[in-house]
């Protein structure tokens, strides 16, 4: 199953490397958000330390939603989702493949946004790089997993672009809260690593729970 999932993910990433359409849009939007933050928030260190976790995770949420919508639109254009579901591979590998490709894209944008936030706002995001990388990685994975289920389900819905964030964000809320709390623990004047590790564990459990749930419901949601 994983072999097929990686094949499907590779196909998605190959198309993206060729078109650069989704990543460039996400990266540009992410950079634009950083510019807006720099004007919208007070530029003193105390305020930055308090607001940069929210800035980071809001950027991940917004850019990730762009990626989810467009990546699944691609599968709708020539009805290629049906072709994937018709292939003699476990249908779960279709879901996993899409989620892996999505996680890579979201992580890719995080790689752009985090240094921009750190440089532009002088935010201490690289104080604990390992913890930050793990929390962002788990956040990207969780968003990709849950988002792929909803994006696939809404593939045939007429107003899917509007519906996707409306149905997705309430379910992703715990993930964003955990990510923000974790980052806040890492960038605080007196870093709270214990809290950061707690929220990283929370993200891990959250991802695992929703991965199992998504694997369970995916097929029944995408077959007409």
């Amino acid at each position, binding site marked *: 199953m994983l072999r*097929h999932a990686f*094949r*499907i993910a590779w*196909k998605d990433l*190959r*198309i993206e490397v*060729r*078109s650069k359409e989704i990543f460039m849009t996400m990266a540009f939007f992410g950079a634009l958000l950083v510019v807006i933050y720099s004007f919208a928030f007070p530029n003193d260190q105390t305020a930055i330390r308090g607001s940069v976790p929210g800035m980071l995770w809001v950027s991940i949420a917004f850019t990730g939603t762009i990626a989810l919508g467009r990546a699944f639109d*691609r599968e709708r*254009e*020539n*009805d*290629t989702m*049906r*072709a*994937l*579901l*018709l*292939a*003699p*591979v*476990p249908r779960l590998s279709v879901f996993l493949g899409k989620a892996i490709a999505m996680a890579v894209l979201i992580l890719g944008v995080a790689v752009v946004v985090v240094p921009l936030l750190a440089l532009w706002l002088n935010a201490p995001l690289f104080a604990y790089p390992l913890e930050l990388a793990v929390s962002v990685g788990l956040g990207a994975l969780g968003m990709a997993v849950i988002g792929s289920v909803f994006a696939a389900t809404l593939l045939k819905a007429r107003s899917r672009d509007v519906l996707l964030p409306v149905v997705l964000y309430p379910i992703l809320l715990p993930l964003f809260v955990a990510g923000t709390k974790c980052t806040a623990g890492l960038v605080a004047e007196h870093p709270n690593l214990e809290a950061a590790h707690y929220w990283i564990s929370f993200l891990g459990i959250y991802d695992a729970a929703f991965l199992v749930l998504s694997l369970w419901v995916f097929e029944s949601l995408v*077959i*007409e």
Partner: protein
Amino acid sequence: MGRLDRVQIDKVAKRYGTERALAGVSLELHGGTMCALLGHNGAGKTTLLGVVSTLVRPNSGTITYHSAGADLRDEAVRREIGLLAHASLCYAELTAIENLEFVAALYGVAADVTKVLDQVGLEPRARDRAARTYSRGMLQRLALARALLTRPSLLLLDEPFTGLDRGGALALGEHLGAIKTDGTIVVVVTHDLEAIAGRTDHVAILRRGKLVCEERSDSSYTYDQLKDLYHRNAS
């Protein structure tokens, strides 16, 4: 895994909300035959193809896929299905060759991509171009190559002649006739009776989701016979 030699559709019904798409359709498809699935727009032909291809779940009724006495399920069934749908089912950003290589990899077959593209008549200089640059006819040929690539034993074709010129349509009809003689179950949804005349030996006509006519013949139906059957039963 065995090739399909019979597909039994038993009292299949499908509704979309309050809209009835199929109402208790029963049909048996045999290897080495070409079934022309006819009917007006909205008669339920595409839905029936969707149900047979496992992509649409019926509300009631069953479909059994037989292979040398055994029943196949899930991935084993999907491996035997080739589908040509309204859309091309191909990725616009990939070339014809990349599209087919991806399909071959997913199906785990070592298919000769060039040979299949030759068979469907996609010109060699177009094969390394992204599919988004193709004309409607070229895209239809690529979609057909995709459906034929894995040598399916159940070939489901929804309006396969759309976008092809007359010569291309007749050549495709001839090619499908040859595929049928290999023992493949061919199901064609079409309004182009001329292209399938002389090749189809099983006719099923749907009207508002119901099977209103089913006929088989030891020899193939002529154009006039098909036209007559269609006009008598479709409306």
